[in-house]
C-alpha cells in the first residue's frame, strides 16, 4: 500500500492548560482534496497549526509522506508541505514574481541567486493560478483576488506533495471563489498533490472536495464523501440551526445547504 501524503494518529494539541484538539485521526492521499469545516471555535485553525508544526503536539503523531513531523527540520518540512495563509501584509512592494520566488527558500542555498529550476517552478506556479501575466507588477497594486492567488502561487512554488489552505476563498467574489476551487481540484487530480483545505463555506467545500471532515469542539463529528457527511441531522446539530436543509445541486448532483423559512 502506498504511504499516505498525510497520516494523523490520535493527536491532541492546544494552548496553555487547555486542549483544543481531543484525539484526531485521519489520512489524506495524494490526488485528493479534503475539506475541513465546522463552526467557529471548533478547532479548524488549531488543527492546521498542529499539522504544520506551529504548535506542539501533546499526544499522537503526524506523518507527512511517511516522515514524522517532529523529526523534520524546518527546511525539510517546507519541502514537504506548504501553507497558503489566510491573510498576510506584504512588508515590501515586491514584484509578483519575486514574491512567489520566496516560496523557493527551502530549496535554495543560504546565499546566491535563484537558479533556473527556481525560476521555472516560480513561473509554473504563477501560470497555474492564472497570474502569469502579472510577473512584473508590484504586489501592493494587486487586487484582493490577485493577491490571494499570489499567496497560493508562493505555496505552489515550494513544490510540495502536500498543501494546506486556510480559507483560500475568503474575501473573494463568486467568480474568483469558483476559479480557486477549480484550480485546487485540478492540482489534486491532475498534478497529484494532496490538499487539505479549511473552509467556512460549507457549500463550496461540499462542491469541490473529494472528502469532507466536520469538526465539533476539537473532535471529528463526521468524515466521508460530501454525500455521506452533508446530512440534515448532522448539520442542524453541528451548527445549532434547525432551519438548515440539504438540497442537491441539479447540475453536479452534489449536496448543498440552504435555509428553510
Amino acid at each position, binding site marked *: 500500500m502506498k504511504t499516505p501524503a498525510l497520516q494523523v494518529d490520535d493527536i491532541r494539541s492546544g494552548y496553555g492548560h487547555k486542549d483544543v484538539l481531543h484525539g484526531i485521526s485521519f489520512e489524506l492521499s495524494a490526488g485528493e482534496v479534503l475539506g475541513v469545516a465546522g463552526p467557529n471555535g471548533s478547532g479548524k485553525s488549531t488543527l492546521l497549526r498542529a499539522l504544520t508544526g506551529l504548535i506542539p503536539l501533546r499526544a499522537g503523531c503526524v506523518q507527512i509522506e511517511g516522515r514524522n513531523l517532529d523529526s523534520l527540520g524546518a527546511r525539510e518540512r517546507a519541502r514537504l508541505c506548504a501553507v497558503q495563509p489566510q491573510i498576510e501584509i506584504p512588508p515590501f512592494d*515586491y514584484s509578483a514574481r519575486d514574491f512567489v520566488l*520566496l516560496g523557493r*527558500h527551502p530549496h535554495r542555498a543560504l546565499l546566491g541567486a535563484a537558479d533556473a529550476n527556481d525560476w521555472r517552478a516560480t513561473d509554473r506556479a504563477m501560470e497555474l493560478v492564472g497570474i502569469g501575466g502579472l510577473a512584473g507588477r508590484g504586489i501592493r497594486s494587486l487586487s484582493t483576488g490577485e493577491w490571494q492567488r499570489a499567496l497560493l502561487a508562493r505555496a505552489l512554488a515550494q513544490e510540495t506533495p502536500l498543501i494546506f489552505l486556510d480559507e483560500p476563498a475568503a474575501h473573494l467574489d463568486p467568480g474568483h471563489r469558483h476559479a480557486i476551487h477549480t484550480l485546487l481540484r485540478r492540482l489534486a487530480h491532475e498534478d497529484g498533490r494532496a490538499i487539505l483545505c479549511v473552509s467556512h463555506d460549507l457549500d463550496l467545500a461540499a462542491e469541490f472536495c473529494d472528502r469532507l471532515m466536520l469538526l465539533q469542539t476539537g473532535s471529528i463529528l463526521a468524515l466521508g464523501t460530501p454525500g455521506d457527511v452533508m446530512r440534515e441531522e448532522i448539520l442542524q446539530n453541528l451548527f445549532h440551526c434547525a432551519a438548515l436543509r440539504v438540497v442537491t445541486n441539479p447540475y453536479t448532483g452534489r449536496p448543498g445547504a440552504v435555509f428553510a423559512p
Partner: protein
Amino acid sequence: MNSAARLILLGLSAVALMIAAVCIGPTSLLDFSRLVELMRSGPPSPELQRASIVLWELRAPRVLLAAAAGANLALGGLLLQAIFRNPLAEPYLLGLSSGGALGAVLALAAGITSPTGPALAGSLAMAGIILLLCRRVASDLPSLLLAGVALGALAQAFVTAIILRFDPSALRGILFWLMGSFAGQGWSATALVFPVALVGLILSLLLHRPLDLLALGGEAAHHLGVRVRAMQIAGIALASALAAVTVAACGAIGFVGLMAPHLARRIIAAPHAASIPGSVLIGIMLTVGSDLIARTLLVGVELPVGIVTSALGCIFFLALLRQKR
C-alpha cells in the same frame, strides 16, 4: 531609479561626508593645494607635521570610529526591527545602551578610570537577560520588547542614583558614557569597533533571506522553512553584541539605530539584501555627520554627539508625523 543605483549614490555620499569630516575642524585640511605645496617643499615643515598629526592621529581614527559605530547601531536597529516586526525596536530602547552606561558608571564609581570593559559587560549582561527572557517567552515578542524597556529604565534609574553620589568634577567623564562621544579615542577604539562592524555586516547579509521571510510574519516564515526561534535568538544576540561593543567604545548614542533603518526603508524600499547596506550607509552618515556638527557647532566647546543625534531624531520624527497627517 532602482535600488542598486540608490545604494551607489548613498555609498558615494557616505564617502564624501567622511572625507569632508576628516578635513573640517579647527585645523582645516581643506586647502589641498597648500598641503601639496608643503609636501613638495623639501624637509617636513612644522605646519605639515601638525597637519599630519591632525589627520592620522585625530581625525581619521575618529571619523572611522564614528562610521563603524553608526554602522553597528544601524545594523542593530535593523535586525531588531525585523525580528520584533516593530519599527520602534532598537538597541537603545531595548536597554542595551543603558546596561552599558550602568556598567561604566559603576566602574567609575569604583575608581576604575577606563571603563570600556565594564561597559561591555553591562551591555552584554543586559543582552543575556533579554535572551534568557526570550527563551522563556519566545512566542510573545511584544512583551519581550516591553521587558527590555523596563530593564533599560531600571538601569537608567541606577545610573542616576549612582551619579548623585559623584563628585561634581567627575561628572564630565560620566557625561561621555551617557551621551556618547567619539572624541580623543585614537586608534584603539576604532580597532575594536571597526572589525566588529565588518563581521556584523557580513553576518547580517548572510541572514538576509530569512530576515525577508521573518518580515512576512512568524507563521509565514515558519511555513517557508525558517527556524523562527533560532533566527530570533541569533538576531537579538547579534544586535546585542554590536550595540554592546559600540556602547563600550563610544558611550550610549541614541536614535541612530532607530532613524537609519527608517530612512533606509524610505530611500531603498527593498528587501534586506539592499536595505542592510542601505541602513549601514545611512547610519554611517548620521554618526559622522552628527560628530562633525558636535565638534564644529560651537567654537571651543565640543558637544556630546548624543545631543546631536537626539536632536536629529526629534526633527526626524516630527517630520514623519507631519507627513502622516
